[in-house]
């Protein structure tokens, strides 16, 4: 379908208006919202993810694609809800307490949304008890944490301990990421999955729920 291709291409180049117009055209042509989502938007995000992983595109290009994706989702969401389309899983995500960086976390959120997840974004500087509350409230499949600083990455263990203390550890998989992290650090704090970048995070999340 030409219009779905146009949506995909607009999203990949970060063209917010192009995505919005494409969605309006597709809906006007009677194309199902689910098909617009899958063939116009999620497929584009797959391409973005692969290109990012392969160093064909970089953070600026991913950010403008994310902006276009968000604009498209805003336009399409009411139609998806009407049609009863369900996400493939739910993720609670946040940057840990004391850390105010959000680019990496936002890219993971966008990639996960692009992979078909519902993402509850707790934002930045999120305390351990807030993560626990969110797991209780939203009952996600995955809890994702981000940290950019050596001074804050230790907070991830506090969150994992707090989730365990609340008796929730078996109910949720825990993913961690952020520039200073390593696999050995993730292993040491008891995380289930460590991801080097946002594209890896989306792939790993899909493997956890599918």
């Amino acid at each position: 379908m030409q219009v779905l291709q146009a949506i995909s291409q607009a999203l990949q180049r970060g063209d917010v208006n192009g995505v919005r117009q494409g969605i309006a055209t597709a809906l006007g042509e009677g194309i199902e919202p689910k098909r617009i989502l899958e063939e116009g938007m999620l497929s584009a995000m797959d391409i973005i993810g692969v290109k990012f992983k392969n160093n064909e595109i970089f953070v600026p290009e991913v950010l403008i694609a994310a902006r276009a994706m968000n604009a498209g989702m805003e336009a399409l969401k009411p139609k998806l809800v009407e049609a009863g389309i369900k996400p493939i899983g739910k993720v609670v995500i946040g940057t840990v307490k004391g850390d105010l960086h959000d680019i990496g976390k936002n890219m993971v959120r966008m990639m996960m949304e692009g992979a078909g997840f519902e993402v509850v974004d707790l934002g930045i500087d999120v305390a351990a008890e807030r993560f626990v509350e969110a797991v209780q409230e939203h009952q996600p499949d995955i809890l994702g944490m981000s940290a950019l600083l050596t001074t804050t990455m230790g907070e991830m263990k506090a969150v994992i301990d707090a989730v365990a203390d609340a008796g929730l550890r078996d109910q949720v998989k825990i993913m961690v990421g952020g520039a200073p992290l390593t696999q050995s650090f993730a292993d040491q704090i008891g995380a289930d999955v460590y991801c080097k970048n946002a594209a890896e995070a989306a792939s790993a999340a899909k493997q956890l729920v599918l």
Partner: protein
Amino acid sequence: MKPIERVTLTLQHKEADRIPVYPLMCGVARKLVGAPYPRWSTDMDVCAEAYEKVTEEFDLDIICTLIDLSVEAADFGQPIIYPENEAAHPDFHNYMLKSIADINALQPIKFKDSVRMKGMVKLCDRLMKSKGAEVPVVAFVFGPLGVLSMMRGQANLFMDILDDPDAVKNGVAAVTETLLEYIDALAATGVPAVMLDTLFASQSIMRKSMWLEFEGPYVKRIAERIREHGAQVMIHNCGNGIYFDAQIEAMQPTAISFLHLPDDCQSPQELKEKYGSKVTLIGRIPPTWLLTCTQEDLEEECRREIDDYKAGGGFILATGCEYPANLGFEHARTMVRMAKEYGKY
């Protein structure tokens, strides 16, 4: 051999008595003078005392005056937060450049009106007087695109680059004018080198051609100004897939402080072969790994890196980014011991 002799030979790609060493001990040095982070960051007498003590106590071969990445942006008027136990940073909820139009309208500020940049000059001046005859003092300056990001927010700036390239270039140009004056003042203290942090020149952030367009020409001017003063240009970049080739072309540095392999090298051996005769390699113990590794792990890693890079000079053992500010000192001691024992020529 004095540190300055050791480092000089190393930068000339000659073998000294041993490889020089400096775990990038900056914020952690505040503990030696019992100062909380905000005081260490803003009271340059306290900061200088901390750098003097850490240099003496650990027998470091270089002093690099990294305080935080907000020094320059603060003087442009960016509101800064000074946390008790970590480096100062911009108020992420209150960036002073709220739109692309604000970037486009940004004007240079005069160095004489600055506070934190003047503080850095004072720090360099004191360290040159107290330590400069024996230990090379390297002034640390954030690159112009990085400074702009501290006033606009990185995510915003990255999107601005694609939305309105000319406006971003105007902003970078304004910051550059100020940094040139700053370089003049730093050079007047007699520092033998200035280390430019080119945070975005790696695959972690942006494509090489984008960096070359949006920061390359500006850091080239800054590097030329540094050399006009008779000082050396060094680079720090802890990104993954760092662009050695583009940065060498733009800045002609004598040394690059790095954490990850460059984008065009698959192994340490390839890196040494390709760039080892062009620049002195400074690195590249991962600082975050220090939080979890054992002393034996670190000894092994030091041995591996020394074996990879020390031949023919041109290698300084260091952390690939700042030594964790809240870590103990034991790993720093181990690195220095390994350089002295295993890093002998």
